[in-house]
């Protein structure tokens, strides 16, 4: 396969040069933030650090972290590092709790973000010959604007569809020969189902690739989408706090996402102690924006748990790769001494043909943790004998044990019987009183 890049000199830069570039940018960025963001300057002063202490990326660990709570406290302008007259855009996301996150962009910030998205589109095989259908939401959400901008930079013919009106999406897709689809993976799966209902087979769908992100998805989902649409499905990662989609993206290897290291410096830390962990360790992903001007977060804790690896990649890109997030640091449970993420349970359920409608109940009896997983059954999984149902429960428990290393007690329950709060299922009930 021909190797193509959007910015070859940067994307294939030797690792030592990347690190040198990062060091130069970091020194300048820390000075910029210290001089312009009183909120962060205070955090640095509390830690006794000044810009003079930062000589390169080896000094990164000296800087204080930023968390979602800081974003809340500093809302809306407290982390802004440029006068508003220099800003040209805001994007926003609803946090899971409390206030929205509002991020500001100068034209330079928009350009570097769109460059990142353009790299992702080229890595998925995009060229100026392609027709790129952007079915992420447009507006405050970063998905639509980010991929739209990236698609322009690559020179694709861009279809700014936004999400929804699925039959119209498919009509445009087939009439105008869209070759690349950008949307959330769940919407891609839904487009696949709708196309099938409309009587289209995968070979009647002109798409060749999809770039899907903004929500967690599994390898099983990837295979399902690839088969339904007859495409290669690529993952893309990003968050509004750091710019939007395109912080990292998958290449033809589909074994993790290359982080755009010339703009984003990544670390993995122990979520409990904040200690920086060596490459290859599983921990919380932390990003430092190296050259964003308006909203340059330093050491921002994403809460995403993943692994970073810098192995030579067959695509020729030298930038470090991150695994798909394996969960959120705030979701991780330690049960019988083992780290358990709800996303692992979800993976098993999808693998075994169940819907990911489940609830984990953890308790402590004496000194032992009890670990139960309630799973909603579909009508076709319902058996009319007790033995049939208990055999299914046992098979699920065995499949979970194979992934988690510990054995849950699985209960199959009626559809829609799991507690939902504001429409979202309550995934974890931890009744243990481990902290007073």
């Amino acid at each position, binding site marked *: 396969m021909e190797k193509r890049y959007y910015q070859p000199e940067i994307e294939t830069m030797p690792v030592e040069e990347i690190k040198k570039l990062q060091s130069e940018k970091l020194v300048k960025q820390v000075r910029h933030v210290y001089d312009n963001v009183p909120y962060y300057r205070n955090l640095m002063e509390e830690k006794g650090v000044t810009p003079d202490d930062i000589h390169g990326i080896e000094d990164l660990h000296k800087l204080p972290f930023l968390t979602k709570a800081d974003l809340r406290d500093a809302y809306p302008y407290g982390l802004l590092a440029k006068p508003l007259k220099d800003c040209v855009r805001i994007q926003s996301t609803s946090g899971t709790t409390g206030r929205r996150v509002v991020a500001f962009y100068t034209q330079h910030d928009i350009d570097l973000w769109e460059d990142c998205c353009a790299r992702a589109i080229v890595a998925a095989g995009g060229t100026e010959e392609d027709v790129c259908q952007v079915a992420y939401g447009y507006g405050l959400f970063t998905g639509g604007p980010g991929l739209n901008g990236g698609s322009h930079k690559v020179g694709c013919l861009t279809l700014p569809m936004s999400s929804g009106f699925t039959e119209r999406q498919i009509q445009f897709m087939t009439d105008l020969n869209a070759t690349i689809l950008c949307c959330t993976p769940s919407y891609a799966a839904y487009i696949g189902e709708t196309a099938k209902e409309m009587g289209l087979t995968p070979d009647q769908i002109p798409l060749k690739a999809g770039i899907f992100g903004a929500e967690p998805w599994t390898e099983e989902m990837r295979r399902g989408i690839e088969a339904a649409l007859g495409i290669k499905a690529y993952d893309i990662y990003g968050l509004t706090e750091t710019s939007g989609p395109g912080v990292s993206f998958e290449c033809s290897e589909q074994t993790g996402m290359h982080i755009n290291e010339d703009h984003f410096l990544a670390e993995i830390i122990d979520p409990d102690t904040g200690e920086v962990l060596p490459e290859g360790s599983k921990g919380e992903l932390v990003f430092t924006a190296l050259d964003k001007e308006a909203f340059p977060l330093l050491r921002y804790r994403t809460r995403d748990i993943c692994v970073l690896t810098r192995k030579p990649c067959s695509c020729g890109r030298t930038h470090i790769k991150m695994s798909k997030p394996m969960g959120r640091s705030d979701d991780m449970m330690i049960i019988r001494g083992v780290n358990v993420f709800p996303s692992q349970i979800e993976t098993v359920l999808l693998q075994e043909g169940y819907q990911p409608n489940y609830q984990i109940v953890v308790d402590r009896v004496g000194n032992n943790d009890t670990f139960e997983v309630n799973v909603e059954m579909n009508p076709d999984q*319902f058996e*009319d004998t007790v033995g049939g*149902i*208990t055999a299914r429960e046992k098979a699920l428990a065995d499949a979970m044990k194979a992934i988690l290393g510990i054995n849950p007690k699985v209960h199959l329950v009626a559809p829609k019987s799991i507690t939902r709060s504001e429409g979202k299922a309550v995934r974890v009930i931890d009744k243990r009183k481990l902290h007073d």
Partner: protein
Amino acid sequence: MSLKQLTVFVENKPGALVAITDTLAEHKVNIRALSIADTQEFGILRLIVSDNDTALVTLTREGYLIKTTDVVGVKIGDQPGKLSKALAVLDEAGINMEYLYAFMSRTEKHAYVVLRVADNAAAETALEAAGFHLITDVDINKL
């Protein structure tokens, strides 16, 4: 030749069962026969009703997990030993049985059993050959 049974998943919670029977009563569905298999966590309610379609639609709409299962209905009458004979017929034919439950007809004083077996057609053939009278959905409302 078949008898349809409705199988409903019941959570082991107070009032779960009565909610189902109330729903059926509201929609004028009569229960002809009923059995429950239960564990600490859940129960499986098996029903032979006067109107399968209405029961299926209403219970599904109420969110119950429900399926239709083909079973074999056999008239036992009121002679002692007749049930044993029916079971012996199945045994000799090598047909495995999952469960059975009995009910009485309203009109005549006859007992009937509902059998859930591995092979309905084979069971029906063997029972009829041994002189048993089988019942279907059509018969249910006349009993």
